[in-house]
C-alpha cells in the first residue's frame, strides 16, 4: 500500500510542479513597475494622514477583513481552550519550582519589562512606523512568558491570572466591534474611518480610528496568545494522566 501511495504522490507532485512552473513563467516579471492597487492604496492612506500604508490598508481600507481575521484568532484560541482542558481521568500536579542559573533569571527579569514596553511601542506606533496591533501583541505576550523561561511555571502563574486575560480578550474584540458600530451610529458605513479627525501627518493621533483599532487588536492578540500558551503550558507541565489508567 505504501508503494502505491508514494507513486501517486510522485505523479501528482510532478503534474502540480509542471503547472506551477508554467504559471510562474507566465507571471509578470519580478520587480515590475505595474502595481495599480498599490498606488491607489498609498493615495488613500495619505489622504487620511496615515503614515504606515500597510496599517491603513489593514485597519482603514480593509478593516472588515481584519475583523474576520481577528475572529479567526478568537475562534482558534477558543478551540484550543476546549481541546486542551483537563479531562476527567487527569489530575493537575503543582509545578515544582525549578532552579535556574542566576544570570539567566536576572536576564529574564530585566528583559521582561523592556520587551513589554517595546511591544506597546510597536502597537502604539502601528500607524506610523513598521508594526501594528498584531506584531506588538505577540511581543507583549511573549515577554510575559519570560517568567516561565527564566524561572518556573509557578512564577508565571502567580503573575498571570487567566480569567483577566480571557475577559480582556473578549473586551478587546467587543471594543473593535463598538468602534465599527460607532461609525454606523454616526450615519456612515460599518468600520468606516470617517468619524474621528485625521490629525496632523506622522503624529501619534493621526489616521482617525486606525490607532484605536490597532490598540484593540493589540490587546486582543496579546491576551489571546497568553490564553493559548497557558493551556499548552498546563498540558505540558502540569496535567498528568492517572497512572492506573
Amino acid at each position, binding site marked *: 500500500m505504501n508503494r502505491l501511495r508514494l507513486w501517486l504522490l510522485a505523479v501528482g507532485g510532478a503534474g502540480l510542479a509542471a503547472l506551477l512552473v508554467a504559471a510562474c513563467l507566465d507571471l509578470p516579471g519580478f520587480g515590475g513597475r505595474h502595481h495599480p492597487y498599490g498606488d491607489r492604496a498609498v493615495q488613500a492612506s495619505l489622504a487620511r494622514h496615515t503614515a504606515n500604508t500597510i496599517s491603513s490598508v489593514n485597519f482603514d481600507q480593509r478593516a472588515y477583513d481584519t475583523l474576520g481575521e481577528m475572529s479567526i484568532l478568537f475562534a482558534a484560541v477558543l478551540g484550543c481552550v476546549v481541546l486542551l482542558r483537563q479531562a476527567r481521568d487527569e489530575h493537575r500536579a503543582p509545578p515544582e519550582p525549578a532552579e*535556574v*542559573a542566576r544570570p539567566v533569571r536576572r536576564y529574564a527579569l530585566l*528583559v521582561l519589562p523592556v520587551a513589554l514596553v517595546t511591544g506597546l511601542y510597536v502597537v502604539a506606533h502601528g500607524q506610523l512606523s513598521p508594526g501594528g496591533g498584531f506584531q506588538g501583541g505577540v511581543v507583549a505576550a*511573549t515577554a510575559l512568558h519570560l517568567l516561565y523561561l527564566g524561572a518556573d511555571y509557578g512564577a508565571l502563574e502567580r503573575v498571570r491570572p487567566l480569567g483577566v486575560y480571557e475577559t480582556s480578550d473578549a473586551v478587546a474584540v467587543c471594543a473593535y466591534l463598538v468602534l465599527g458600530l460607532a461609525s454606523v451610529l454616526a450615519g456612515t458605513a460599518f468600520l468606516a474611518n470617517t468619524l474621528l479627525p485625521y490629525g496632523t501627518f506622522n503624529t501619534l493621533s493621526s489616521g482617525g480610528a486606525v490607532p484605536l483599532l490597532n490598540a484593540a487588536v493589540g490587546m486582543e492578540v496579546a491576551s489571546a496568545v497568553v490564553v493559548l500558551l497557558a493551556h499548552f503550558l498546563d498540558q*505540558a507541565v502540569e496535567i498528568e494522566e492517572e497512572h492506573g489508567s
Partner: protein
Amino acid sequence: MNGWILAATVALGGGGAAALWGVTTGPPARRVIAQNLTTSAFCPALLLLAQGYGRPAYVDLALLLALLGPVGTLVFARLLSDDLSAQDASAWGLTWTAAVLGAAAVVALCVAVGPGRAMVKLLVIGVLLIGGNVIASRALAGGFRGVRGG
C-alpha cells in the same frame, strides 16, 4: 554600489549558510548553539540593511530580533535541557567572536549615523543583542541543570 548592503549580503549569506549547516547537522547541543548564533548573525545584518536602504524605520526589526532571538534560544535550552545536559553545549569561543563582530557592526553604524537619538537606539540594540546572546549561551551551557526538561 552600497557598501552597507554588501556587508549585509556577506553577513546574511555567510552567517546564514553556516547557521543552517549548524542547525541541520551534528548533535543537539551544536544545533541549539547554531540557532543562538543565527540571532547574532542576522541582527547586525538587519541593522546594516536599514542603513544601506536609508530607512531608519527598519531598525525596529533588528530591535525585535535582538529581544526575541535569545528568548527563542531560551525556549530550546529549557525544553531540551535533558538532551543538552548530557553533552557539553557551551561554545564560548563562537559566542564571543559573534559578539565582537556584532559590536563592530554596531560601532561602524553609530559612526555612520552620527550622534543623536538614532545612535542611542543602535547602542540599545547592540547591548540587548550581545547581552541576550551571552545569556542564551550561558543557559545552553547548563543554565537549566535543575530543570527536568520543563
